[in-house]
């Protein structure tokens, strides 16, 4: 592999440091089918996903985050033929945030834990 060492990118009008790109990239992402025997459709920087019960999942990173100040974007959805609200949150606000992965819970519009077809996670921050 060859390495291109540059400190700035220029599109003809605007110049930005390459750290804009590296710092802004998702360091991990996951597209999970959370129903049936759970299955990973696509991912980056993920070693495993653990099904912890109805609507509870843990994604574990291969390359860990530097500290617990990273940011996570989550969404979830159903493949039902009608509109259905599916929410996703960090698993437990009273537990510490781990640098080696994240836990999420998905629940229905009635606020009960709910297995959903699409669990989508993206993590941004500094790697260890």
């Amino acid at each position, binding site marked *: *592999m060859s390495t291109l060492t540059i400190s700035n990118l220029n599109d003809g009008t605007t110049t930005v440091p390459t750290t804009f790109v590296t710092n802004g990239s998702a360091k991990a992402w996951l597209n999970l089918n959370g129903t049936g*025997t759970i299955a990973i459709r696509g991912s980056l*920087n993920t070693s495993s*996903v*653990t099904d912890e019960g*109805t609507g509870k999942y843990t994604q*574990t990173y291969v390359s860990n985050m530097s500290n*617990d100040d990273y940011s996570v974007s989550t969404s979830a959805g159903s493949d039902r033929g009608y509109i259905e609200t599916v929410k996703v949150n960090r698993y437990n606000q009273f537990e510490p945030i781990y640098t080696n992965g994240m836990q999420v819970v998905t629940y229905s519009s009635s606020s009960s834990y709910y297995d959903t077809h699409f669990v989508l996670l993206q993590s941004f921050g500094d790697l*260890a």
Partner: protein
Amino acid sequence: MTHEHLWVRLAEAKAVLEPVQSKYRVLFEDPREPDAPAKVLCPDPNWLACALAGNVLPPIETYQRDRDVPDGEPKEHPYAEPIGPMTEEEAIEYLIMKDCPVETWRDYKGNRTIMKIVPVELIPSDRSFRNAWRIAQ
């Protein structure tokens, strides 16, 4: 000798390696949560492809040593020399040591079976009563 950061190696491997769906799942119960249902660990297909191909993942000991390193301090695993190819069985053992709590595979002294590596077909696809799943003894 220096190596590319682990995340860079993962990104490069993802571009060239076909994902591999594992034939196995790890079923385990966490002794710290006696009322919780059995958990099912699913290996990531891209990670398994890296494990089988070799020269991407760091030694498992680096993760174990990094557990004792405070957040924000330099970690060993991202820059450790990558290990060679593993069999799928070896990869699952590596994954257990990396992603399962040590209380399940190292420290447990009880008589109950709290961990099993099972073919994926043996995991029920019907999730009825999912929160009551236990490992059959």
